């Protein structure tokens, strides 16, 4: 039975998750528990943790975009994005986000996945535009509606990214698949893998666009009330 003890790490994750503790603390507690129960010494667990963290530093590189976006925000990027939508007659939140969904999927599919995102486009451009579109249609918005519109803008970015990026063959997740299968003597080219991401991408566009159209309808009903 004792060889199941390392699974305690997973239990700690679930528990920390349920109790809404800080995820950094929960993950570290899970690492220490699994490592120690899996037979490593304390120093070895800390070293393994540090080594793995260090090998994944590439993840931190995307934050290099922050100074550019933040500087443009200083000069009114968000305000300009709002102005752009205010001039469009028939803009709705749903239509705007469908266009952004398509843009996000297509740009991610050609390898530009790091050029859009929550800091790059959602916060400075898409969310303010979506709010203006909603206000134009429905007048002043209640705080819960503001929250819903912003959350939907962020969700649309994620859906577009996740179900677009794998069509580009030179991306992290394709490398992970390739490496994991190669470890079992199954050799695939990145392009073979990325082609099979297309059916899911099409389905994601259809499903999420439908939701966005329904979201427009929902806002209209809320405003009529």
């Amino acid at each position, binding site marked *: 039975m004792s*060889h199941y003890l*390392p699974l305690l790490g*997973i239990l700690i*994750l*679930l528990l920390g998750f349920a109790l809404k503790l*800080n*995820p*950094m603390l929960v993950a570290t507690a899970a*690492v220490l528990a*699994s*490592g120690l129960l*899996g037979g490593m010494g304390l120093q070895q*667990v*800390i*070293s393994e*943790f*540090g080594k793995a*963290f*260090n090998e*994944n*530093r*590439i*993840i931190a*590189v995307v934050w*290099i*975009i*922050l100074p*550019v976006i*933040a*500087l*443009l925000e200083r*000069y*009114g990027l968000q305000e*300009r994005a709002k102005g752009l939508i205010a001039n469009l007659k028939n803009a709705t939140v749903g239509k705007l986000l469908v266009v952004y969904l398509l843009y996000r999927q297509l740009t991610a599919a050609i*390898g*530009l996945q*790091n*050029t859009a995102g929550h*800091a790059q486009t*959602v916060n*400075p451009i898409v969310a303010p535009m979506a709010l203006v579109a909603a206000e134009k249609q429905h007048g002043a918005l209640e705080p819960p509606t503001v*929250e819903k519109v912003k*959350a939907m*803008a*962020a*969700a649309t970015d*994620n859906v577009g990214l*996740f*179900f677009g990026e*794998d069509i580009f063959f030179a991306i*992290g*997740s394709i490398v*992970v698949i390739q490496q*994991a299968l190669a*470890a*079992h003597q199954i050799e695939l080219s990145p392009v073979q*893998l990325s082609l*099979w*991401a297309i059916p899911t991408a099409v389905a994601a566009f259809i499903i*999420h666009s439908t939701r966005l159209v329904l979201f427009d309808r929902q806002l209209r009903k809320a405003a009529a009330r």
Partner: protein
Amino acid sequence: MTPPPTPPLLTLEHLYWLVGAMFAAFALLSLFDRTSKKAWGNAAFWGLMAASLIGGSYFGDFVNGLIVLGLVGLAGLGFTGRSQPKTTSRAERKAFADLRGNWLFMPALIVPLVVLVGTLAFYLTPFGEMNLFTPRRETYFFLAAGVLVALLVAQVWLRPPLLAPLQEGRRLIDAIGWAAVLPQLLLAMGKVFDKAGVSGLIQEGTLAMLPPGNLFLAVLVFALGMAMFTIITGNAFAAFPVMASAIAIPLLINTYHGDPAVIGAIGMLAGFCGTLMTPLAANFNIVPVRLLELQDPNAVVKAQFATALPMFAVNVALIYFLAFRA
């Protein structure tokens, strides 16, 4: 014996130095911040990130581990938080925006343009064979180059105070906070789990539970395993190697002769459905909550549920119908 290949002109190490320098600047500017109560905590936190990026290759594993524990302690015990570096007022921004018009988008568009042109040149011209960058990571170099060009253009055109890009960048990174570091931490967690034998135990458990001869159930359990493991670890990349060796390879590929390309590609996308449903995927689900100042920390996850669930069903169906065509 072939001589070892010469290292490229620019390696990931150089990129880490550049990004590390940015975090070091955030840390230094925090030290001089008299307005934020969390200034010292923020300075320590971004200082440790800078140390990891700049010195991580030289410190040794144990010191790197201590850096991680330091980051976790500072963030977990609430020493970090938002800051308010001096910036422009709402009225000033509106005036600037009216003055500059749509040209304001131009520096932001320089970044994707540089990445696109750079990548095309890299694959279509001899530029790609000049051994300039670490192979298969060229996108990150073009991203950094695009940022530098955009900053230069903005600096010349808008004439902000010299420190403005860093002060404004600090405003954003402090709004994001530890969520900026969590994904890296979770990937590291996955690796330690693996070393501790957690993946092997999951494999043992799932294989014992599955009845033999039921193809659809095997596909479902594989996809479900991808999504569930992604939900509890916050990362589909950590889930894939575990689920591939636990279910996909022994059952779907070796026993049922499924197409590994379909199973691999769409299996990963089933995992992404889990990413849409977990607050642990901080980059995607917590960072926007912080930036957009949402009240409910799970607002983005909640907005994604109704897309994630049908997408999961679609992925299960796609694997079932596409991978076993022959």
